[in-house]
C-alpha cells in the first residue's frame, strides 16, 4: 500500500487540499485574504512536493500508471494552478465563492492528474469528465454576468455532446478489441474501416478538448464569457493536460494506426493553424484574441506531436511548460487591467505603455513568446515542435507551419503596436497591481525568458521522455 502514497501522491495531495478547503468553508469565519494566502501556500507545498518521491509504477491493475515524465507533466499543471491562484488575486479576494472556485478548480486538476495517469478508457473517461464538469461550473462564476452563464451553457452542452461521441467511440473500440486497457489494446488493433471511424470519434473528442479545427468552435465563446481565472485554467491547464494524454494515447495505444493519424494530424494541424490565425486576426476582445491564438498554438503542438518520437514528446511537454508561462502572463496582465478598469478591448490598450510600462513589457514578452520570437522561450518551444515535426522531411507541412508563424506574428504585433506605438489621450490609468500578482507576473516573465535559454530544462524533459 506504500505504493499508493508515492505513486498517487499528487492526486492525494490535491484531494487533501480539496477537503481542507471544504472544512475551511464549512468552518466559516476566515477572510478571503487569509484564505487565499493559505491556498497559495498549500498549492506551493503541492508543487514543491511534486518534485520528490518520483517513482514509476502502476496501480489498480494498470488502471493508474505513472512515471517521471507524467509526474513532470503534473508538476507543470501544478505550477500553472499556483500561478493562477496568484495572478488573479484581486478577483479571488472580491469573489464571495472563492473557496468553492478553488474546490472546483482542484477537482478539475485532480481529474487531469488522473487523466494523464489513466491506464484504461474507463478511468480516462471519468477523469475527463471530472476535468470538465467542474470547469463548466467555474465558467459560470461571474454570476452577475450574462455572458458568463452563456459561456457555461455552451461549454457544458458542447462537452456533453463531445463526451457522447467519445463514449460511442469507446464503446465501439471496446466491442472490437474487447478491452478498455491502454496496454492491451495496441496488440488487438487492426486498421479496418470501422476502426477508422472509431478512431475519428475518439480523435474528435480529444480534438474538442484541445480545440482543434473543426471541433474548436466552442473555445472562443467560452473563453470570452468566463472569468479570467477560468479562462486561463481552460486555456492552459486543461489544454496542457489533454495534450499530454492525447499524445500518450496516440503514441501508445494507436501506434498501429500511425499512418492514419499522421495524415489526420497533418491535415487538422494545418487547418487549425490557419483557422486559428485567421480568426485571431480580427479580434478586438483580448480574451477572444487569446482564445484564437491558443487555437493556433495547438496547431503547432500537433506539428510536434505528429513526429511520433521521444523528441516530439519532449518538445510538446516543453512547449506546454513555456506556453503556461506565456499565456498566463498575458491573461494575468489582461485581467489586472480588466479588474480595475473593465476594459478588455485591444483598442483600449492604446498608449498603455505611457502609463503602465511594467504591464506593457510583461504583455509584450508574453506575446513575443507566443509568437515564437527569440530570446523568449516560445522561440525554442516552437522551433523544437517544428523540428520534431520536420523529422519526416515533410517540407510542405513545415513550410505551412512556418508561414503561419508570420500571420500569428501579425496579430500579436497588433497588440504590441497598440500598447507601444499608438498615442492615446485616454490611455488606461495606472493600474494598482496586487503584490502577489506582480510577483506572479515577474515569475512568468522570468519563465518566459529563462526556460528557453537554460537548455538543461529541455534536456531534463528529454531525459524523461
Amino acid at each position, binding site marked *: 500500500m506504500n505504493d499508493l502514497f508515492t505513486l498517487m501522491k499528487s492526486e492525494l495531495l490535491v*484531494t487533501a487540499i*480539496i477537503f481542507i478547503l471544504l472544512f475551511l468553508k464549512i468552518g466559516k469565519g476566515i477572510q478571503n485574504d487569509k484564505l487565499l494566502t493559505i491556498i497559495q501556500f498549500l498549492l506551493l507545498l503541492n508543487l514543491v512536493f511534486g518534485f520528490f518521491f518520483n517513482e514509476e509504477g502502476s*496501480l*489498480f*491493475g*494498470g*488502471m*493508474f500508471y505513472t512515471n517521471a515524465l507524467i509526474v513532470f507533466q503534473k508538476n507543470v499543471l501544478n505550477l500553472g494552478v499556483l500561478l493562477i491562484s496568484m495572478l488573479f488575486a484581486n478577483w479571488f479576494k472580491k469573489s464571495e*465563492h472563492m473557496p*468553492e472556485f478553488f*474546490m*472546483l478548480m482542484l*477537482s*478539475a486538476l*485532480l*481529474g487531469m492528474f*488522473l487523466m494523464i495517469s489513466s491506464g484504461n478508457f*474507463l*478511468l480516462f473517461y*471519468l*477523469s475527463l*469528465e*471530472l476535468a470538465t*464538469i*467542474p470547469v*463548466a*461550473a*467555474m465558467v*459560470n*462564476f461571474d*454570476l*452577475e*454576468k*450574462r455572458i458568463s452563464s452563456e459561456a*457555461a451553457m455552451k461549454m457544458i452542452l458542447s462537452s456533453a455532446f463531445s463526451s457522447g461521441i467519445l463514449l460511442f467511440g469507446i464503446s465501439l473500440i471496446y*466491442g*472490437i478489441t*474487447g478491452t478498455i486497457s491502454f496496454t492491451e489494446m495496441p496488440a488487438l488493433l487492426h486498421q*479496418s*474501416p*470501422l476502426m477508422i*471511424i472509431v478512431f475519428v470519434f475518439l480523435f474528435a473528442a480529444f480534438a474538442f478538448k484541445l480545440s482543434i479545427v473543426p471541433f474548436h468552435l466552442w473555445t472562443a465563446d467560452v473563453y470570452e464569457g468566463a472569468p479570467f481565472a477560468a479562462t486561463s485554467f481552460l486555456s492552459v491547464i486543461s489544454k496542457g493536460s489533454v495534450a499530454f494524454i492525447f499524445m500518450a494515447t496516440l503514441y501508445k495505444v494507436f501506434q498501429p494506426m500511425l499512418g492514419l493519424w499522421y495524415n489526420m494530424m497533418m491535415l487538422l494541424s494545418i487547418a487549425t493553424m490557419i483557422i486559428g490565425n485567421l480568426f485571431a486576426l480580427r479580434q478586438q476582445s483580448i480574451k477572444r484574441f487569446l482564445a484564437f491564438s491558443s487555437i493556433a498554438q495547438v496547431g503547432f503542438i500537433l506539428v510536434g506531436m505528429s513526429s511520433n518520437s521521444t523528441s516530439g514528446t519532449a518538445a510538446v511537454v516543453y512547449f506546454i511548460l513555456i506556453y503556461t508561462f506565456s499565456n498566463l502572463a498575458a491573461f494575468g496582465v489582461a485581467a489586472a487591467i480588466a479588474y480595475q478598469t473593465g476594459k478588455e478591448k485591444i483598442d483600449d490598450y492604446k498608449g498603455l505603455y505611457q502609463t503602465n510600462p511594467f504591464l506593457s513589457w510583461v504583455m509584450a514578452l508574453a506575446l513575443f513568446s507566443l509568437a515564437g520570437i527569440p530570446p523568449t522561450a516560445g522561440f525554442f518551444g516552437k522551433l523544437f515542435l517544428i523540428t520534431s515535426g520536420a523529422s519526416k522531411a515533410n517540407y510542405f507541412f513545415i513550410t505551412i507551419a512556418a508561414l503561419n508563424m508570420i500571420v500569428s506574428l501579425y496579430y500579436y504585433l497588433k497588440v504590441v503596436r497598440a500598447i507601444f506605438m499608438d498615442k492615446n489621450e485616454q490611455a488606461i490609468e495606472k493600474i494598482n497591481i496586487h503584490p502577489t500578482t506582480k510577483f506572479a507576473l515577474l515569475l512568468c516573465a522570468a519563465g518566459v525568458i529563462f526556460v528557453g535559454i537554460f537548455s538543461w530544462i529541455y534536456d531534463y524533459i528529454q531525459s524523461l521522455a
Partner: protein
Amino acid sequence: MNGSTIIFYLLASFTLVSAVLAVTTRQIFRAAIFLLFTLIGVAGLYFWMQYDFIAAVQIVVYVGGITVLIIFSIFLTQQAGDLLPKQKMSRQLFAALASFCGFALIMLQVYQHTFIGNATQALPPTVANIGNKMLGVDDDGYALPFEVVSILLLAALVGCIVIAMRSKPEENIIKQ
C-alpha cells in the same frame, strides 16, 4: 420467431419511436414523457439482455432521478402550454441529413465488420459479482473509478450550489 424475438422488436420499436417523438414534439412536457418512455424502453432492453442490475440502475437513476430533474427544470423555466420554438427549416434539414449520413456511415461499416468475441468463460452479471468488483482494488477492481465519481459528484454538488444560489441578479435581466 419466438417470444423473446417479438419482445425485442416491440421494445426496440417502442424505444425508437418514443425517442423520435421526444426530439420532435413541440410540447415540452410530452417530450419529457417520451424521453421517459425511451429510457424505460432502454431499461426493457437491458432486462431483455438479462442485465437486471443495470436495468434497475437505469430505472432508478434515469427515470427516478434525471427525468425528475428535467421536469423540475421545465417547471422552473417554462410557462405551461407554450409550444417549443421551431428551429429553422434549413437547419432541420441539414441536421437530418447530417445525422442520417453519420448513421449510414456507421451502420455500413458496422455491418461490414466482423466482430470477434470471446464468449467462452462468461462471467454472469449478478449483483454479487458486480459488488465484488465495484470496490475491488486488485486487478479487476473498480475502486478507483468509484472514488473518482464520488469526487465528481461532490464537485458537481458544490458547483450546482454556487451557481443556483446566486444572490444578486444582473441589472439588465430580461432586457428583451
